[in-house]
C-alpha cells in the first residue's frame, strides 16, 4: 500500500509535505532540467517586493562549518515582472505556488498583498518579516511581537489568500512571536529564516561579506530550527512549515515529529538540485519501513 503523503496547510491541500524555500529555488523554472517540479508539494518563490531590487554588493555568500552565510539583499525582479513573466510559466507546469513577499514599510507590505491577492494562480502568500522596517530605524519587523502582530492584521484585511508568516529566529521567545501572529490571524507559520552571522577574513581584517553580516543557513542551524518549531508548535494551533538545514528525508521527518505539518528545503537545493524529489521518496520509504499510513499521523508526535 502506497503511503499517503498528503497534508493540509491553511486550507491548502498538498500532495506531499515537501516544499522548496524562498530564495533557494529561484522562480522554480531553473530546476526544470533536474526534475519535474510539479511533483513538489509546493514551491515558495524568491522574495518579491513592489519594485525590482538590485540587492547587495558582492561578495554575497560565504561558506561556514556545515553552513553558509548569505547577504543577497533580497534582489528580485519586482512584483510586476513576477506576475507577468514568471507566474504564468509556473502555472503552466501545474505547480502550487506560494509567493514570498516583503516590504520596508507596512504600506509596501499591504500594497503587495493587495496586488497579489488580485492575481490568479497563487496558492498562498508567505510573508517574510525578517526585513528592516525603515520607518522604525531599521529594526526588523519580525523581532517585535507587537509590530509583527499589527502587520499580520493589516495583511489579513486585504487578502483572502492563505497567509503564511515566516518567522525570524533572531528573537528571545519564538513561542511569543508565533502566538502574536496567530492571534493576528495568520493561517500558518513557516520557520525558520536565517540566523544572523558573520565571518571575517583575518588577514584583510574585513568581513567576508560586503554587507558585514549575513544569514546563516544549512545543517549547522538545524538543531536550533527543530527546537524553535517544537516551541512554536506548543504555543500555537495553526500549522507550521519547518525550515532549516534539511538535507535528507530523515531531517525532514525530524521537523514533522517536532510539530511541522510540512517542510521547506533551502540551502540543500544548491548542492543537490534534485534533493527535493529524493526527500519525497525518502519520506515514502521511511513510512513504509515504520508502517506509517499517513504522514499527518506523525505531525507533532514527539514524546515528551
Amino acid at each position: 500500500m502506497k503511503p499517503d503523503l498528503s497534508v493540509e496547510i491553511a486550507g491548502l491541500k498538498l500532495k506531499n509535505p515537501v516544499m522548496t524555500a524562498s530564495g533557494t529555488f529561484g522562480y522554480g523554472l531553473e530546476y526544470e532540467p533536474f526534475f519535474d517540479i510539479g511533483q513538489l508539494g509546493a514551491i515558495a518563490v524568491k522574495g518579491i517586493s513592489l519594485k525590482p531590487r538590485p540587492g547587495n554588493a558582492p561578495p554575497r555568500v560565504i561558506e561556514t562549518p556545515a553552513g553558509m552565510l548569505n547577504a543577497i539583499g533580497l534582489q528580485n525582479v519586482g512584483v510586476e515582472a513576477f506576475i507577468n513573466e514568471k507566474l504564468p510559466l509556473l502555472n503552466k507546469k501545474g505547480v502550487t505556488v506560494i509567493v514570498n513577499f516583503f516590504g520596508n514599510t507596512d504600506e509596501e507590505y499591504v500594497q503587495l498583498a493587495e496586488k497579489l491577492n488580485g492575481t490568479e494562480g497563487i496558492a498562498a502568500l508567505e510573508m517574510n518579516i525578517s526585513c528592516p522596517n525603515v520607518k522604525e530605524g531599521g529594526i526588523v519587523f519580525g523581532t517585535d511581537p507587537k509590530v509583527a502582530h499589527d502587520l499580520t492584521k493589516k495583511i489579513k484585511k486585504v487578502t483572502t489568500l492563505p497567509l503564511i508568516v515566516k518567522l525570524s529566529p533572531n528573537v528571545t521567545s519564538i513561542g511569543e512571536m508565533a502566538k502574536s501572529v496567530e492571534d493576528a490571524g495568520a493561517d500558518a507559520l513557516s520557520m525558520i529564516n536565517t540566523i544572523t552571522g558573520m565571518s571575517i577574513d583575518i588577514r584583510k581584517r574585513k568581513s567576508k561579506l560586503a554587507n558585514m553580516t549575513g544569514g546563516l543557513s544549512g545543517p549547522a542551524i538545524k538543531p536550533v530550527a527543530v527546537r524553535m518549531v517544537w516551541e512554536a508548535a506548543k504555543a500555537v494551533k495553526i500549522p507550521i512549515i519547518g525550515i532549516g538545514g534539511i538535507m535528507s528525508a530523515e531531517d525532514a521527518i525530524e521537523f514533522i515529529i517536532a510539530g511541522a505539518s510540512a517542510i521547506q528545503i533551502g540551502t540543500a537545493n544548491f548542492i543537490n538540485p534534485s534533493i527535493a524529489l529524493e526527500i519525497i521518496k525518502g519520506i515514502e520509504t521511511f513510512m513504509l519501513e515504520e508502517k506509517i499510513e499517513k504522514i499527518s499521523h506523525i505531525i507533532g508526535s514527539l514524546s515528551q
Partner: protein
Amino acid sequence: MMKYSNGKGKIISNREVAPDHYKMEVEAPTTFGEALPGQFVMVKVSDGVVPILRRPFGIFQTNKDRGSFEILYRKVGEGTRLLADIAPGVNLDILGPLGTGFDLDLSGDNPILIAGGVGIAPLYMLAKELVSAGKQVKVLFGSRGKNDLLVVDELKTLGIELLIATEDGSEGFKGYGTGLLEELLERGEEISSVYACGPEPMLEKVDKIAISHNLICQLSLEAIMACGFGVCLGCVVKTCTKDKDREFDYNRVCCEGPVFNAGEVIWDEA
C-alpha cells in the same frame, strides 16, 4: 539553455602536474560532449557537509572519443585539498556544463589568449578549438616563475604561438602577461581579439587595455558560488546597464558569465 545535467562521473585520473596543480579526468555525463570553452562544472568535493558547497572549475578539455572531460585546478583551500586526495575510481558529483562559453565567432583571424596561472584551464580548450577553426592563435601565459608554468607541452603541441611572462623573469618576458600584451600592441602586431582568464587584477588590466585599444575582448571571471546555475544570486558582479533607471546591474557570473565582454564589468575598488 538548460543543457546541463546533474550526475555522477567516475574519476579516471587525478594527478599533480605542477607544484600544487592537478589535472583530473572524469567520465562525463552525456551533455558534456557539447561543452563550450569557458563553460564550467560544479563539483562536490566531499560526501559530507564540510565543505558544504560545490566548487566551480573551468573545463580544461573534453574528450569526446573517451566520453570524458578534464579540469585543471590549483590547491588553494580545504575543498581543492580534498579534491586532490580523491583516488581514481571514485564517483564524483558533477553538475554542468554551466555558464556561457567564450564566443568563438568574435575571434577573427589573429586571436590572443592571455592566461594568468591556472586561468589557462578554460583557455586551453579555447585555443584548441580556435586552432581547429584555422585561426592564428597566440597564447600569452603569465606566471610567477618557470616552476609555476602549466601544460606548456600540451599548448605547444596545439601548434599555437606560446609567449611566456614570469614575474621573476625566470623564463620569457619579465613581468606580467599584460605587460607582454602591451608590448605586442606597441609593436603593432595584428590582434583581432583578446580572450582572458586569470586573477581579477589581471582581468581589470586587460579590460582597460582592450577598451583603450578598441579591441574585441572577452574576460572569464570568478566569484564565490553557492549554486552555479542561477538560483542563489550569490555570484553577482557589477555590470553596466542599458536601463536608464539604474546605475548598474548585478549580473550572475554563473549564468550571464563567467565570460563577459570588455567594458561590461564595473570594477569596484575593494
